């Protein structure tokens, strides 16, 4: 065991892990974080706390993670390289670990163009792969990125990275995973999967290189609330692959029943993914629909969560 | 009140528009004396600078006349001219001159009647628009200095 992370314990014990997501509020409203935690307690092994997602300013991932920890859940600190330089990121890692946060997800972050501050600088002092390297160096060597020793016990962070089997160029996506693993990624969360065929193809390449044994891959899934949501994800979100027949399936059902259908599709996808060799668990992204996660976890036969 | 006689500068390409002007003349088709023709080898020779200078020197209206689309003697001189005219019209707006005072027109060498018609139409259009704001301003300044 590299860390004390609950997620690491669950994965190492050989269980299918379950993580979910919580987006902090666009204001200083701790009650909202507490409410979302309420839906997820006991239902997931760790909960991702997003970091200025889609480049919209929100309560910091750090603060929301602390609130989440106080609620008795296991926060997964998401950190994007878009908003901070390496000094700030290392400082946040030390601070987060000092407050009991032991799991981190390293990301580049959506471009500011998509958010509410398109006029801001995109920092990217380092990229996501260099961030993975940096956290690993802090944890395993007790050194800062600049080379100096850090004081005291090194922050034992369980390091995660994102993978998108649906972005282009497809042929690069396995090599990219290899790169992240070589940099030090202990676990991977993928972009949400609707095109299971394409995901299976990616996993073939992944297994071919033995990468599924060097890291733990959590398959991303999302329940769709409506056919409108399905179309939006298909057409407007870069890097997402929503096949037409999935959209059609949502459209074929009357509006009031669409949320139920969306949850159904999500659970069916999870059942199919369980059979794919190399899938170590699931990352359920139910943005602004956190109350559904419990139903999905139960529907996929993954409840109760193992106590490790 | 004296009737306003606009000064119109017409940049005409040698191969089509100027020849059409010639034809209008030989066919005794009348067109207004307001139009001062400047012959250029191709409408694509006309630069934004020529157009702006024309307005600076007192033109009330300017047009660039080239060959019909697809028939330019130099292949794409007229398309380049059209782009420059469009771009220059935006500059005119920045300066404070109505962009309608500038136009791009097309005709073939045999269209004497079209040359005359366009010359007449544009003259009347500019007459209605009135003197170029630059001209009025220059006159205003001169009278200021004089008094």
């Amino acid at each position: 065991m590299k860390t004390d992370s609950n997620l690491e314990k669950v994965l190492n014990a050989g269980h299918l892990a379950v993580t979910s997501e919580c987006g902090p509020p666009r204001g200083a409203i701790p009650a909202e974080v507490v409410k979302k935690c309420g839906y997820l307690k006991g239902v997931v092994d760790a909960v991702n706390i997003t970091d200025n997602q889609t480049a919209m300013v929100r309560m910091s991932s750090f603060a929301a993670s602390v609130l989440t920890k106080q609620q008795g859940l296991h926060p997964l600190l998401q950190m994007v390289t878009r908003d901070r330089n390496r000094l700030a990121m290392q400082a946040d890692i030390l601070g987060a670990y000092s407050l009991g946060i032991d799991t981190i997800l390293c990301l580049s972050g959506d471009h500011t163009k998509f958010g509410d501050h398109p006029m801001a600088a995109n920092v990217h002092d380092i990229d996501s792969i260099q961030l993975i390297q940096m956290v690993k160096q802090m944890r395993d060597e007790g050194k800062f990125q600049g080379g100096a020793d850090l004081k005291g016990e090194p922050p034992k962070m369980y390091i995660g990275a994102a993978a998108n089997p649906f972005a282009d160029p497809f042929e690069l996506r396995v090599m990219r995973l290899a790169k992240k693993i070589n940099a030090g990624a202990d676990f991977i969360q993928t972009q949400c999967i609707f095109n299971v065929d394409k995901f299976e193809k990616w996993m073939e390449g992944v297994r071919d290189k033995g990468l599924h044994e060097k890291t733990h891959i959590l398959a991303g899934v999302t329940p769709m609330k409506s056919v409108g949501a399905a179309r939006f994800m298909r057409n407007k979100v870069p890097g997402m692959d929503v096949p037409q027949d999935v959209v059609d399936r949502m459209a074929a059902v009357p509006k009031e029943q669409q949320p139920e259908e969306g949850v159904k599709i999500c659970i069916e996808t999870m059942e199919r993914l369980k059979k794919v060799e190399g899938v170590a668990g699931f990352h359920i992204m139910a943005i602004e629909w956190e109350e559904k996660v419990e139903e999905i976890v139960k529907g996929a036969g993954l409840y109760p969560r193992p106590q490790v | 009140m004296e009737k306003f006689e606009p000064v119109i500068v017409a940049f005409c390409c040698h191969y089509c528009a100027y020849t059409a002007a010639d034809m209008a003349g030989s066919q005794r088709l009348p067109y207004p004396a307001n139009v001062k023709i400047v012959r250029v080898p191709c409408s694509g020779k006309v630069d934004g600078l020529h157009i702006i200078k024309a307005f600076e020197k007192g033109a009330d209206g300017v047009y660039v006349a080239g060959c019909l689309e697809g028939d330019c003697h130099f292949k794409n001189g007229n398309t380049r001219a059209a782009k420059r005219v469009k771009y220059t019209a935006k500059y005119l707006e920045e300066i404070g001159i109505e962009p309608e005072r500038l136009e791009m027109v097309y005709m073939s060498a045999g269209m004497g009647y079209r040359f005359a018609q366009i010359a007449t139409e544009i003259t009347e259009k500019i007459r209605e628009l009135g003197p170029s704001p630059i001209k009025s301003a220059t006159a205003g300044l001169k009278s200021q200095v004089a008094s």
Partner: protein
Amino acid sequence: MITAERKPLEELIEYVKPYKRILLLGCNECVTVCAAGGRKEVGLLASGLQMALLKSGSSIDIRQHTLERQCDPEYVEELLPMIDGVEAVMSMACGCGVQQLAMRFKDMPVFPAVNTKFMGASERQGVWAERCKGCGNCVLGETGGICPIARCAKQLMNGPCGGSVSGHCEIGEDTDCVWQLIWDRLKALGREDSYLDITPAKDWRAGGGGGPRKIIREDLAE
């Protein structure tokens, strides 16, 4: 070359309004190539400014001249005879040239007529695209001659990110995903394996992170 675009005319009118005689200076290098501040653009701007000011009831005498370059003091020195009686200077050169003028003519108000944009190259006539960020430590040898710092919206050194779609950057279809271009190039050169090498975090000191940069050649400097 360094690319630039002329500032909106109303901004320039505000600059020159208070003066009766100014010197409008063009530059024969980069800004000529990108049609922003060469001899012709000086003529166009002088004419436009004069007409616009006339409209508002004032007049201005605009002396026009174009230097070979404005970023070398030797060329700026040529202006000495022209500067007499001039109340202000407006330069159509990039920021480097404007500052050179201001340093030489310390008592003269100096104004920029263009917004300096980026270091770039011509894609085709009339189209210039950003190519170099002056990061101070060129990696083009490793990326098949294509720059991820200048051309990646997130300046990723180990790209692409998850937003690359059909060869386009997530910010829009008009922008190539440079990592797609780099990958294609590495393939064409038979160097796909090099993709697995992790480029470590960059030392930004060479790229301006250590403060404004200077090059001093001991063999050339007096």
